[in-house]
Each structure stands twice: as structure tokens, then as C-alpha cells.
């Protein structure tokens, strides 16, 4: 388990599920880092879970697609699947943009 703590008082707890160091996983991680840096002012933590090493964890968060980003905090839990290349969709998924943002635009 790779754990990266940015700040001790996190209001954002994010989990990124991957299976090994696949290009998609790496892209997703890079994209996620970038978005968090830009949007969350350092108040976040990212936990990367490699299902190849811990396959039993997949069932807990109901993971079926990879990569999947799970927003554990703040509640409600949200899931974003894919390599996070579409920033706007990620922001919508994280509730940083209203759900109808893309349509409004």
C-alpha cells in the first residue's frame, strides 16, 4: 500500500485503486495529483491501493473498474472511474463543480 500524506488535518480523503503500475494507473495518479494541488489547497490525503497486492480490498469499496478514485471524505462516497484525464468530469465527480456544470458550459 502506498500512502502519501500531504497534511494532517485532511478534509479530503481520497483512495485510488489500481492494479500494478499500468500506464492508465500512472496517468490517473498524475492527473489526480495535479487536480488536488490546484483545487484542494493541500487539505487532502491520497491512498493508492494496488489490488494485485491486496485483492481482498476490492470488494469493500465495490470496485469493479480500474483505475477508480473513491472519495471517502467528505461524505457521501463518490466514485470516479477512468484515468481522470477529463478534469472537468473529475471536478464534477468530486462535487467541486455542480453536476450540470458541463451542460451549462
Amino acid at each position, binding site marked *: 500500500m502506498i500512502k502519501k500524506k500531504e497534511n494532517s488535518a485532511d478534509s479530503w480523503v481520497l483512495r485510488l*485503486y489500481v*492494479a500494478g503500475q499500468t500506464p*492508465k494507473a500512472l*496517468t*490517473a495518479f498524475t492527473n489526480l495529483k495535479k487536480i488536488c494541488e490546484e483545487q484542494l489547497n493541500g487539505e487532502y490525503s491520497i491512498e493508492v491501493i494496488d*489490488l*494485485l497486492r491486496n*485483492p*481482498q480490498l*476490492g*470488494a469493500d469499496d*465495490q*470496485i*469493479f*473498474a*480500474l*483505475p*477508480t478514485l473513491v472519495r471517502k471524505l467528505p461524505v*457521501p*462516497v*463518490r*466514485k*470516479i*472511474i*477512468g*484515468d*481522470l*484525464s*477529463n478534469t472537468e*468530469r*473529475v471536478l*464534477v*465527480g468530486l462535487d467541486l463543480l455542480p453536476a450540470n456544470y458541463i451542460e451549462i458550459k
Partner: protein
Amino acid sequence: MKKIEHEIIKRQLPKSATGIQGFDEITGGGLPKGRPILVCGGAGCGKTLFAIEFLVRGATEFNEPGVFMSFEETNDELIANVISLGFDLEDLIKRKKLVLDHVHIERSEIEETGEYDLEALFIRLGYAIDSIGAKRVVLDTIESLFAGLPNQLILRAELRRLFRWLKDKGVTAIITGERGDSKLTRQGLEEYVSDCVIMLDHRVNEQTSTRRLRIVKYRGSIHGTNEYPFLIDENGFSVLPVTSLGLKHVVSNERVSSGITALDNMLEGKGYYRGSTILVSGTAGVGKTSIAAHFAEAACKRGERVLYFCFEESPNQMIRNMLSIGIELEKWVKKGLLQFHATRPTLYGLEMHLAVTHKAVNAFKPDIVILDPINTFVISDKEVEIKAMLMRIVDFLKASQITALFTSLTSSESSLESSEAGISSLIDTWILLRDIELSGERNRGMYVLKSRGMANSNQIREFLLTDHGVELREAYIGLEGVLTGSARIAQEAKESAELLIRKRDIERKKREIEQKRNALEAQISALHFEFESEESEAIKMIEIEQDQIKRLKKDKVQMAESRHVNSDFIDNINLKKKNNL
């Protein structure tokens, strides 16, 4: 020859027995081992149950642990749903024979951003399979993914990879799919799973439902191609193969009494064959049930077990009614020799009836089964289906050497012989009851329409229901046909009167002859007497005449002597005398 057979068996596709009653029979051993199988059908047709039973039987009977990946029901729901079928999933999970994995996909919780794959599903499944060494996998129903994931291209590519992966894993996998409008499944899963496709169907016909199963495709194996009815009851899934039952049952030469002596007499004096099928048909109120009850009572008296299915009367009503004709059934019920099964035919579909019959027969192990009446099914379903069902019942009972008696109600409009739901060809002995209307009366007539393997009476008998049971009378054939009821009684009286007169005539004639003989004899004796007296007189006369002749001769000799005739002359006379003497 044996070697060739052996080789064929060897070359056959390895199969994974499902343990589902009847299914392995029609597929020649079960599902293809190590391949994905598509089970499709509409809502509520039993896909999940089929899959669950495959896993449970695998785990309990064939030592093949299984993984159930559900996309619809949660684990708790699933456990609760199948416990009524006697499947204790929790126990199997504890014993590491089964893994349940619920995949929850909620469209509203998911945001798609760019490239992804379903590797996590593979990992989860792989983890579950490896954790218990599973040989069987069920994905129920993977089509839910289509509702949860918007990107169809990725999904389809991933499904193809999944099925390939399952094959490589060597697990026998059932994939269930909802039936589509024009395709077998809504999402065209048959494109990916092409080794074996099983279709389940749930049809409602005249308000009763029938479940059916069909093997659409089975690569590399021979299989039954028909639609097979199947059941879901408290023991799970069971497929009822029609054709697997051959006509190979052992036949018995033993005869069983019908309980009515006169009827036995019509059947070579011995009654029905054991293990044969008897049909008693007739219009309303002709006494079909009474004949059945007689048969039941006679069997119970012999100590045999009787299972009586009544579809119109309750057992109590039946017992009361039969008591009125002197048949006491209650004591046999109490002794446990007679068991009633009362259900409405419309309660469930034909297949369910068949299954209930099977189950009851297997549990009670009767010598005789009575179905009273069978034609109430006719109302509820199609003739062909009834025939198929009755054929299965008949075959099943024959195979178990059980004598079966069916009663059937015929409506007065249709022909008596043809309307028996087309089952007449299945029947060995067919007794037809009919009412005969004559001179303002309605009477019952009975005859044996056919009876295979025995010389049966061709006579129409009058059939009476008395307080001591059924009685059969010789029917009178008069000028206007069969005479029954009071017409018969009148005829009987007439005939007995005629008989009396004839008897008297004969006696009178006898007397006359006797008198004549006496007279004749008297005459004969009188003549005889006359003759005798005449005869004795004549003899007397003859004697006198002879005496005279003798005397005359004597006199002549004396005269000659006295005249001294020579001795020669005398000698001559003496010689003559001698000669005369």
C-alpha cells in the same frame, strides 16, 4: 464394440454434472466443463435459482466449490431467498465451499473520466476463485453492468476478455442474461458466450403458468432439443424429460381384482393386470368414482397401498358419499393404507401436478394410484400438453409397476370415445359407463371398450348403485335395443310368466304320454293272456290227437298178431314203429 464405445465416451466433451434433477439426463452429463454457459430468460423464470443450484449441488455433491458473483441481489438477500429451497448458503460459506460476492453498481455514484478497464472485477473474481479453489462460477446477471457503465465499447471489449479469462481459468461458469426482444439476451451476450446456451421460459396459459427449459446450443455435445417443462419447488429445480422415459417397463402377468365380481367376470374373471392403466369414463353421475372406490377398497382389503388423487371432492366428502353405497374408506385411511390427495386442478399448472404426483408417489409408495378425474385438466390447458403430462404419469407409474386408474368425465355432446383428451391410446383397459334413456328413465350401462392382453366381454351390462355397492346385471336386448331399469323388470316378469306356462304345458304332455303308455301296456297284457289260454288249449288237443294215433297203431299190431301174420311182416311193422318213434 465395447472398445469403440469406450473411445467415444473418452472423446466426449468433459462435463460438469449439475446435480439438477433431469437436467443431466437431457444434456448427457451436465454442462461443458471449464466453459462459460449462458442461461437466459425473462424475469422470474428461474435463472438465478438454476445457477445457485448448480453451485450448491457442485459444492455438496461433486466437491466442486463455487463462486457466486451477484450484480443484483445482495448476499443477505440471496441467502434468505434460497433458504426456502433447503440451500444453506451460510453453512457452505463457513465450510469454504462457496463465496458470495455482491458487485454493487450505482449509476449515480459513478463518474466516468477517461480510459478504464474492468480489471478490478477480474481481480475480485480471481481472488474469490483462488481463495477456495472454485471450479464453478456464476455471474448473475452481468448485464447490470450495461446499466451502470455508460461506455459500451469498453464494456463489450472487457466482457469478451472476461469470458476468455474464465475459460483460461478452467472454471465452469454460468452467466445469466435477461431475455431481449429479438435476441436471446438484451445485450447480446450470446455473442461472447457461444459454447452452451440454455433458455428458460415462463409462460402463462389460461391463467396457469408453466416453466420450460430449452437447450438452444451446446457445442460439442449431443443434447435434447425439446422444450422441457421444469419445476421449482421446495427441493429446488427439476427438469422433467419426456423422451428419456422409454417404453421398457417390466410387465406383470399378475391380475388384480376390480373389487366388483361381475366386472372381474367381464375381464376373464380375474380383473385388471397389475401395473396396467385403467380408464373409467362416462357422463356425469354414472358412477365413475364408485368404481374407483371399489377398486381402492378391494386393494386395501388385500393389504395394498392406495394413493387417491381427488380433484373435485374433498376426502371427507368422498368418504361420506362412498359410505352411502356401502364402501367404507375411512378405516383404511386410519390404517394408513389409503391416502387422499385433494387439490384443485387449477391450483397450479400441469407440470406442477406432475411433480406433486411424482413426489406423493415416491413418498407413499403405493401399489395403486387413482386419479379422479383427469379431465378437469382439460379445462385448464391444451390437449397436447395434457396428453404429454398424462403420458409421463402413465410411464412413470408403469415403470414403478403401479396400477393406475383414471376416471374421466365426458360431456354428453361429444363422442364418448374420442373426447378423452386424446389419451385413449395410453390406456390398457378402458371401461365406459353410459346412461341409457328409455321409457322415461335414465339408467346406467357399462361395457369394456378395450382391454389389452385379455379376452374381455363385449356385453353392455346394466350398472346399479346399491347400498352395498355396485352391481352389474345382464342387460336385455329387446327389439328397441338394450332394456334397462323398469323395462328390464317388465321384460323379466313377462319372460318368467311365459316360462311358467311352458313348464305347465310340458308337464301336461308328460302326463298324457304316461297315460297312453299305461293303456297300451294293459292291452298288451290282455292279448298276452288270451294267447296263452289259446295256446294251452291247442297243446291239449294235440296231445289227445297223438294219443289216439298211438292207440290206433297199437290196435293194428295186436290185430296182426292175432291174425298170425309172418314174422317178416311183423318185423317190418316193428321197424316202421321204430322209425315212427
